[in-house]
């Protein structure tokens, strides 16, 4: 059995395995601008003159000191109530939110799949596939050979691939996005509710693809509210509560504790 060591922040490290994501005492604070003030030109001008910040700007301390290590080949589910900081954590791992203190260290570039449905909404699904693949750094030849695979994977209704993406339902958009992002091998793939809109058939396909991605020695993070999806796809679950680590471990146990605590 491999030995583990306990560091500060109560993180155990398994020296026999290779880490791919290290989150070190991460704090995320971000600013939220609300529509405050009177909202007319005079009040906006007065604000500028008085050198005030935008009204009703509040600071949100979303992540309050998280630390954990994720190893190659792991599929980590992240659960927690609404507003507990799950999506913020994924954005921070993807490098889209700067840490207030602490840090996130990754091998390779993490890719985040969110819920906004379109990549470029005025362009057809077809063009979105080509542009998405090229943007991820695939060659035109690769893109061509993967094209049909992506279309099949997304499972859009007949003909929709020729329509602009703004005509897609949110489920169709999310499926196409996932299909495009999954076409490439990612070191770290972060999935934020992107599978929620898919049907059972799509979920089976995504599970297979996530398993493949894990075998290619990457790591997958999954945020989902359907706990059975989490249990099905992940081999480790982290429960976040109010920006802090609540529990970390085997899916069955963590999910059971979570269900008990939230009274579901």
């Amino acid at each position, binding site marked *: *059995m*491999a*030995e*583990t*060591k*306990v*560091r*500060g922040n*109560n*993180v*155990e*490290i*398994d*020296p*026999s395995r290779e880490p791919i994501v*290290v989150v070190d*005492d991460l704090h995320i604070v971000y600013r939220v601008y609300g529509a405050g003030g009177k909202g007319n030109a005079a009040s906006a001008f007065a604000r500028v003159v008085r050198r005030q910040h935008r009204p009703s700007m509040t600071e949100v301390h979303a992540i309050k*000191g998280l630390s954990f*290590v994720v*190893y190659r080949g792991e599929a980590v589910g992240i659960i927690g109530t609404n507003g507990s900081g799950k999506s913020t954590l994924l954005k*921070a*791992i*993807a*490098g889209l*939110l*700067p*840490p207030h203190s602490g*840090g*996130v*260290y*990754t*091998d390779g*570039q*993490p*890719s*985040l799949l*969110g819920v*906004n449905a379109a*990549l*470029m*909404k005025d*362009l057809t699904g077809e*063009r979105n596939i*080509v*542009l*998405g693949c*090229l*943007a*991820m*750094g695939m*060659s*035109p030849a690769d893109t061509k050979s993967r094209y049909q695979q992506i279309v099949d994977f997304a499972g859009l209704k007949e003909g929709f691939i020729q329509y602009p993406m703004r005509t897609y339902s949110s489920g169709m958009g999310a499926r196409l996005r996932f299909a495009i992002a999954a076409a490439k091998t990612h070191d770290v793939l972060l999935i934020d509710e992107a599978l929620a809109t898919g049907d059972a058939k799509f979920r089976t396909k995504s599970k297979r693809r996530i398993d493949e991605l894990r075998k290619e020695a990457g790591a997958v993070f999954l945020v989902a509210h359907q706990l059975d999806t989490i249990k099905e796809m992940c081999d480790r679950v982290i429960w976040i*509560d109010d920006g*802090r*680590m*609540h*529990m*970390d*471990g085997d899916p069955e*146990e963590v999910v059971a504790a979570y269900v008990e605590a939230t009274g579901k």
Partner: protein
Amino acid sequence: MSHPERLGSPGGESVGTIAEPPHVNEKLADYAARHGLRQSAARPPLGKYLQSVWARRNFIWAFASAKNISLYSDSRLGQVWQVLTPLLNAAVYYLIFGLLLGLSRGLPDFIPFLVTGVFLFGFTQRSVTSGAKSVGDNLSLIRALHFPRATLPLAIAVVELQQLLLSLGVLFAIVFAYGEPLSLYLLLFVPVVMLQLMFNVGISMVMARIGAFNRDITQLLPFVMRTWLYASGVIFSLPSLMEKGSKLSQYPLLGELLQLNPAYVYLELSRHVLLSDYREYIERKYPMDVGQLWLTAGIWSVVMLVGGFLYFYKAEERYGRG
């Protein structure tokens, strides 16, 4: 503080007592560094960044073409507007400045002169305005996929180049219709456009960074661009404004500054190589150093391209954050 419970961890529950000494009280950051992990929000070194931009050249081209196609997809005439818009622009300026105000005073072939100015200034103008929006308009793409962000303003410059090539067809038709003879001078137009393209790429990168963090800039730009248009001799000949006895000749410093204006330099060079009548007219009435003009154009292009790229790159990790 919370006390995380670690259940069923892959390594079991034993706490390492016989661990190798060097790593015992290692900080997580050092542990990450030892395994070659990097800060996920860091921007890559410049050389690597340039490489990854070059690797995306197909993306830049495909993105530009897609943008170009979707640009007029709402209108019935579609792509015809790509040619119609600059033509109508030139017609408006001709109506006001040529016919009503009579600025053509003495200038030979005022129409080709005006059309050259309007089309080529529009090339830079659109690079600036759409460059400023290039990051903000593509946030969902930026947040979904990882790619060097510099490809976005680069794609914008390619869009504008593709648009320019179309309107250049119209431009040449007009120029030849006014009896411009075929000469080697015309070949010099290619390097002029190349220099201007380099300048445009640079300035759209600068605008992309400014526009990404200050949304107010898009409200301000139309005024800035209009001022720039009038200061660049698009609708009148700047050299003839500075002739002896004119108001501008009383302020030689201002005149010097106006001649360093990059838009003026590219416009003047284009007219110099494209319009032989205008060339002779200027040589006869207001002799100037064309070599100086080329030098200024070259310096502007290189400085803007390199400076703009570096300026954009410095904020690479901050684009698309919310």
